[in-house]
């Protein structure tokens, strides 16, 4: 069965620190990849997505992610985090169907 692993469950950073959140998936075929963010008290929002083409994807609010097919990874990065980035981040994979397979999420806390 397909699965998505997010290895960091809780991350605490100071403002201006660099961020990298890991995401690995288990499916070997063609995949579409997503990062969603959930700010406190708000609904899930799309940060960025990869369908095809350039494996380095840029999203909103300065986030980017790199699809490395050989490593089955789609890690999320941001060079300098802000306090307002405090949220929960979910990686999701879709392979050939409409079913999103989500990871368990990473809670990021940014200290001002």
């Amino acid at each position, binding site marked *: 069965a397909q699965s*998505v692993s997010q290895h960091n469950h809780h991350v605490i950073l100071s403002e201006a620190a660099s961020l990298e959140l890991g995401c690995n998936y288990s499916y070997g075929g063609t995949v*579409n990849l*997503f990062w*969603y963010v959930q700010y406190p008290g*708000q*609904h*899930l*929002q*799309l940060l960025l*997505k990869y369908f095809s083409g350039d494996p380095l994807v840029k999203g909103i609010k300065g986030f980017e992610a790199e699809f490395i097919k050989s490593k089955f990874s789609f890690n999320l990065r941001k060079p300098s985090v802000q306090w307002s980035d405090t949220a929960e981040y*979910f990686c*999701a994979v879709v392979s050939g*169907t*409409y*079913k*999103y*397979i*989500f*990871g*368990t*999420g990473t809670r990021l806390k940014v200290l001002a």
Partner: protein
Amino acid sequence: GAGVSQSPRYKVAKRGQDVALRCDPISGHVSLFWYQQALGQGPEFLTYFQNEAQLDKSGLPSDRFFAERPEGSVSTLKIQRTQQEDSAVYLCASSLNSYNEQFFGPGTRLTVL
């Protein structure tokens, strides 16, 4: 409205009660999805509609769970004889079609006592 809306936002039920959760998708979105998110977990797929047709209900955990979208717009997820393990956030999402990005509602937090 501009986004997906869900009601109620919070629901407390006694074990054995029936509940109904409503989802209003984005206007014009053909595809509608329900997910269940348990505490500390990511959302898990429950069911999928294309217009009024329920094309996939493989994620529904038991026959106590039932979903409908009779006119291809608003959808209702019904849980009969609720159990404590049904406590979770129930998310609704819609998309233009099944292969586009999904837009999520705020969820309904169900607590079964």
